[in-house]
């Protein structure tokens, strides 16, 4: 893939965000059916096509803007977006290695990794980084290895450790989280941190997904998509800053929903890590305003059907209660589009 990266995007007021036709064409549209309910939608993460499934960890034209937004969030609220328990250091090195090797292998024009034993040289041309460090020696990096690499990696990253037949959150870099607190969720088990999700527990989704996850083997990653919506292209929608972005939910009308409401799709390519036996849970977020998505008539029609039939508990859980009706009214204009 030819990587044309934008350099002037803003995910805060004043927003400067849009998808190029190429980015929209590869948008991971998450609805295979006209209705949506939780399911164990895990599949092997095999390289597929030339879109977002072509790489171990996808990056796209929003890479530079997202890294800048992450740096800003971390500077504005230290300790709020990045956390790691003391015993996660081995998993931290594991994930640094996995991201560096994946990026360098998949995007050799912009990332380079040279190794001489434990002496590593990491080059990131998109962010102008050329660093040498000793793999395994935290003192050779300016910060913890997980923070170091996830500041240069698109999307959120959560590290899960396995104990007592379940998975616990041991660390996270989450400047793009959808209305939760990583400080609060730190140390929670699989069923605990999924606790607030409605309906899915009763459907057995989390029991089945956990069984699947515990069987995850190194070099055999799996992936799934998840989705929600956000008003305006704001990535940092943490529980902590709800007062900053909550009022946006009152601003949606049927006439502006095409520009204000953004579908927010999370690509989650889960990998078992080789030394620590931890699992890395990336949440790579793709944003697109509804107005961009409906330019594809099949997507417009499907969005109308999915959103208009969405279970009320999911409407509430995803924070759409206040603008769901306006969004559906907007989408109804595309209900009968022929493909």
């Amino acid at each position, binding site marked *: 893939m030819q990587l044309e990266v934008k350099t002037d995007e803003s995910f805060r007021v004043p927003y400067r965000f849009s998808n190029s036709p190429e980015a929209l064409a590869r948008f991971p549209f998450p609805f295979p059916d006209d209705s949506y309910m939780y399911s164990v939608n895990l599949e092997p993460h095999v390289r597929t096509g030339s879109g977002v499934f072509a790489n171990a960890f996808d990056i796209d034209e929003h890479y530079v803007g997202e890294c800048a937004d992450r740096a800003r969030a971390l500077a504005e609220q230290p300790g709020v977006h990045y956390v790691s328990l003391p015993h996660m250091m081995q998993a931290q090195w594991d994930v640094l290695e996995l991201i560096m090797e994946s990026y360098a292998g998949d995007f050799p024009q912009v990332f380079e990794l040279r190794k001489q034993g434990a002496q590593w040289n990491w080059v990131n041309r998109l962010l102008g980084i050329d660093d040498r460090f000793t793999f395994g020696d935290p003192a050779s990096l300016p910060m913890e290895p997980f923070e170091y690499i996830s500041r240069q990696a698109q999307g959120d990253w959560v590290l899960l450790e396995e104990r*007592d037949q379940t998975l616990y959150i041991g660390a996270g870099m989450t400047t793009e989280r959808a209305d939760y*607190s990583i400080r*609060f*969720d*730190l*140390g*929670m088990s699989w*069923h*605990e*941190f*999924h*606790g*607030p999700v409605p309906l899915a*527990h009763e459907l057995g989704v989390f029991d089945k997904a956990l069984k699947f996850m515990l069987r995850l083997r190194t070099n055999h990653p799996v992936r799934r998509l998840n989705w929600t919506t956000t008003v305006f292209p704001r990535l940092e929608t943490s*529980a*902590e800053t*709800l*007062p900053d972005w*909550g*009022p946006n*939910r*009152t601003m949606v009308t049927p006439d502006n929903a095409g520009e204000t409401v953004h579908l927010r799709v999370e690509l989650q390519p889960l990998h078992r890590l080789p030394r620590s036996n931890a699992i890395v849970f990336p949440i790579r977020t793709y944003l697109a305003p509804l107005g961009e998505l409906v330019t594809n008539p099949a997507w417009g029609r499907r969005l109308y059907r999915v959103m208009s039939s969405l279970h009320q508990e999911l409407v509430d859980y995803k924070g759409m209660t*206040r603008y769901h009706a306006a969004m559906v009214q907007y989408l109804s204009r595309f209900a009968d589009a022929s493909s």
Partner: protein
Amino acid sequence: MLITGIKSRPVYDRLTPFPEALLHLVVGQGSGGTAMSRLIAEIAPGADIEVMYSTESFTGQNHLAALKDAAPGRFDWFASNAALSQALHDRLSQAFMGTRLYLAGSESFIGLAMKVARQFDLNADEVLREHCGSLVRRVWCVHCDTYSENITQRVFSCSGCGKPLVVRDHYSRLMGAFMGVQGDAEVPGELPEASELDT
């Protein structure tokens, strides 16, 4: 016994003796005193038992006298939960293999004591927790990082930043607290209906 639909909230136990224990460390607060006395009576005579009790209580339940009588060995009491957690920390740092911990009291107290126990890697096979007394909650404000104690209402004013917080049914064991988020973040002044936290 407290059982709710809150998936992240611990399911508490009923205190019964660990038969393999070399030392029974019986620790509690306020209303937990009844469960502690009951447990002590069930432990085989001659076993090594130590009791720690805090008289701090939201509802005013005090079982100090009864516990003093029931405790066959070392007995320490404290005027506050904070003082008891410090003493528990000191005691566990001297503890040997075979120590088993029993906790009884409010959820807030159990959460605090478990934070101490976790520092010593006491796991589920070594600790029992019995919830006693009222259903008040300890709530962490996600906005200002302050803990408010003994919360009984779904909507309340944060003791740190004063924001009107809604208590989410989501519990963090590491914090020993529920989460509070601003209730009128979308439209100032527009809050969910006031209601009592009855679980």
